[in-house]
């Protein structure tokens, strides 16, 4: 057998050589010669930065059912305007913005999870109700997407979840309950009245507003007395018994943080029952919200010393070109003056755009870092996203309701207080 093996070995070797040479000849590199080539390239466009996805999805949560459905619509209006504007100008670094709308009243935790796990959104914006904001905020680490709240006002969102618990993915573009409680006290302190009554919703927002208002006012005007308080529950249809109970006191002025459709009913019933003869001044912290302004229209009641109203943003302030352009475009598209949560949502999306343009990545924590400390020009003015609690800091004024013949009342005697005076500051004790 040895010979056969030996022959086989030789045959293999020869075969290998033949195959190798043939292959080597077939695949040989071309003649190696000396070639020198030079090319001049002129760079006229900057280095192309692109996001990893061609479509950026933003989940939008708002109240879309029940008596407060108007607010979900406001949020939608602002979101759509921002998205359409951005897409018309080429998107964010070339990527399209797509919005997914969900009703936060249909079990907000489920909706949030569906947005992230099923719809695969990259961000969530919106949320009207403070309770819902706390719920979604509570699970934000699991969801792992940046959240920009554009309406819900509880200070606990930023003070507790962001500052104390370090949930860095939560942001808020709208001014919180500081505006309802603390800023209102700044208006109240200059009014020549001593006895205040309050009617507020019996839940976190109402309680906190009244609490902050009374504490702040007492500090600036120790002579002030609070002679009555009523706590209608959320969703009250009829304020008459509460109103009459307050009218039985010797209060001179009324403070209320009641908002939306309830506020419309409250104001109507106040007028009906003669409340405006008794109370010389009325402070309505969300009284200049557009749904209320349009609903009451020319019948919006004015008190002797003024009905002072505010909101999270007012279309007539500040008188900057940016704001004017925004309001005009909004009116052209939707036929009405901008509601505040439309502006705050519009801003939220632009905030995300700015952050994305800086990070060029969809990584949640880089985006959060980019948003932190951001200073951005928006219709409501310059917003500074405070790094400690991710709360947007900007000015919102109070004004006195006046009627100048338009379909909605206007605000005059605007009082804008610097934000640092009415915002609470870390460490929030």
């Amino acid at each position, binding site marked *: 057998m040895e010979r056969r093996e030996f022959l086989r070995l030789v045959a293999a070797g020869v075969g290998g050589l033949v195959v190798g040479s043939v292959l080597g000849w077939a695949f040989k590199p071309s003649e190696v010669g000396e070639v020198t080539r030079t090319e001049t390239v002129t760079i006229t466009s900057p280095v192309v930065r692109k996001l990893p996805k061609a479509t950026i999805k933003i989940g939008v949560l708002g109240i879309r059912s029940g008596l407060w459905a108007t607010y979900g619509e406001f949020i939608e209006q602002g979101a759509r305007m921002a998205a359409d504007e951005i897409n018309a100008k080429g998107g964010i670094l070339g990527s399209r913005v797509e919005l997914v709308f969900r009703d936060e009243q249909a079990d907000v935790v489920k909706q949030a*999870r569906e947005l992230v796990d099923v719809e695969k959104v990259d961000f969530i914006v919106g949320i009207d109700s403070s309770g819902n904001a706390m719920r979604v905020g509570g699970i934000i680490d699991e969801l792992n997407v940046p959240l920009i709240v554009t309406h819900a006002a*509880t200070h606990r969102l930023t003070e507790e979840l962001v500052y104390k618990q370090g949930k860095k993915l939560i942001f808020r573009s709208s001014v919180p309950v500081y505006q309802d409680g603390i800023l209102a006290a700044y208006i109240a302190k200059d009014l020549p009245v001593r006895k205040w009554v309050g009617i507020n919703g019996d*839940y*976190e927002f109402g309680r906190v507003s009244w609490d902050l208002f009374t504490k702040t006012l007492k500090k600036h005007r120790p002579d002030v007395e609070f002679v009555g308080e009523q706590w209608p*529950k959320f969703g009250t249809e009829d304020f008459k018994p509460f109103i009459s109970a307050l009218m039985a006191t010797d209060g001179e002025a009324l403070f209320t943080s009641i908002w939306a459709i309830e506020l419309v009913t409250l104001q109507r019933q106040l007028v009906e029952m003669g409340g405006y003869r008794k109370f010389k001044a009325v402070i309505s912290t969300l009284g200049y919200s557009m749904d209320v302004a349009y609903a009451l229209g020319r019948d919006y009641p004015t008190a002797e010393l003024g009905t002072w109203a505010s909101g999270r943003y007012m279309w007539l302030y500040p008188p900057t070109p940016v704001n004017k352009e925004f309001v005009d475009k909004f009116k052209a598209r939707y036929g009405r003056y901008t509601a505040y949560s439309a502006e705050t949502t519009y801003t939220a999306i632009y905030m995300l755009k700015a952050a994305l343009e800086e990070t060029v990545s969809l990584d949640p924590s880089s985006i959060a870092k980019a948003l932190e400390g951001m200073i951005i020009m928006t219709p409501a003015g310059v917003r500074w996203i405070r790094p400690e609690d991710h709360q947007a800091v900007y000015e919102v004024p109070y004004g006195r309701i006046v009627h100048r013949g338009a379909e909605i009342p206007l605000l005059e005697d605007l009082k804008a207080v610097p934000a640092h005076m009415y915002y609470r500051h870390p460490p929030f004790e």
Partner: protein
Amino acid sequence: MVIRDINLALIIALTALLLLVPLTGDRFYIYITSLFMIYSLFALSYNLLFGYAGLLSFGHAMFFAVGAYTTALFTLKVLRDPLAGLVVGVLSSIPVALVVGFLTLRHTRVYFAILTLAFGMLVYALLVKWRSVTGGTDGLIGIPKRGVVIDISSPTAYYLFILTFFTITTIGLYLFIKSRWGLLVRALGANEDRLPFTGRSPLFIRLYTFLVSGLTASLSGSLYAIFMGVVTPDIAYWTFSAEPLVMTLLGGASYYLGPVLGALTFIILTTILARYAEYWLLLLGLAVIAIVIGFRGGLGGMLVSTFYTVRERSGVWIRWRYSRLKI
């Protein structure tokens, strides 16, 4: 091991299926299946009262809420552990069941239904008004999954936690129904007038049924609190009490696992249908109407009757073939 009982077999099969879910790794499926298990327990507890004992209650959410809030309060204020909180939550239903049960079960069925509604709403009002303890309409947040005894923070962990309780309770409740105690409960539901002739007090039977039902409902509530991390008063509102009722009806009240089938259907409807059909509640309402008028057995009934029909038809066919073969 041959399991002769179809229900036990189904439960075991279901558990096996459920064990597969976390393997998919899809967070949403894990989430929705966890919710399914919790709702199933709630509906099963409800059917014990409704289908077996014949007691219609509109306040069942009170047990769910009591279990949830007790667990929340315990883990937030006393001992930061979900398992301990769960145990306390379940036990908290005992005084509620005894007190409410004693007060309400003496009345006839219609009044009982309305009384449970009143008591259920009383609990709701308490939860809303007692802000210093319950957080009012904002509720309590931050219920921990990571505790001193156990840590179930990962989705797989809490899923298995819920699954364990689901299987144990479902089997346990079934054994209860099959036992002598359960026999009395079924007797109560079948023909209450005859019951005293057996020497048993209907009130006593109703009471312990109410107790067992309440314990199970509170268990589902406690699991819910831990799972969600948040509790709010709307889990005590009467419309939430109506949910296990609808689930039971959908699935079939006369079958032990009917409520489970109903819970599944309900979740599928609310998740999938709600996304495509804005007016899914309309469909639900129509479904309820249709079921009451035509299909009182619910889906379970339809499945069972289909099964029998198929079996009979194929039996007939097989016998015909065999007859030809002259075997």
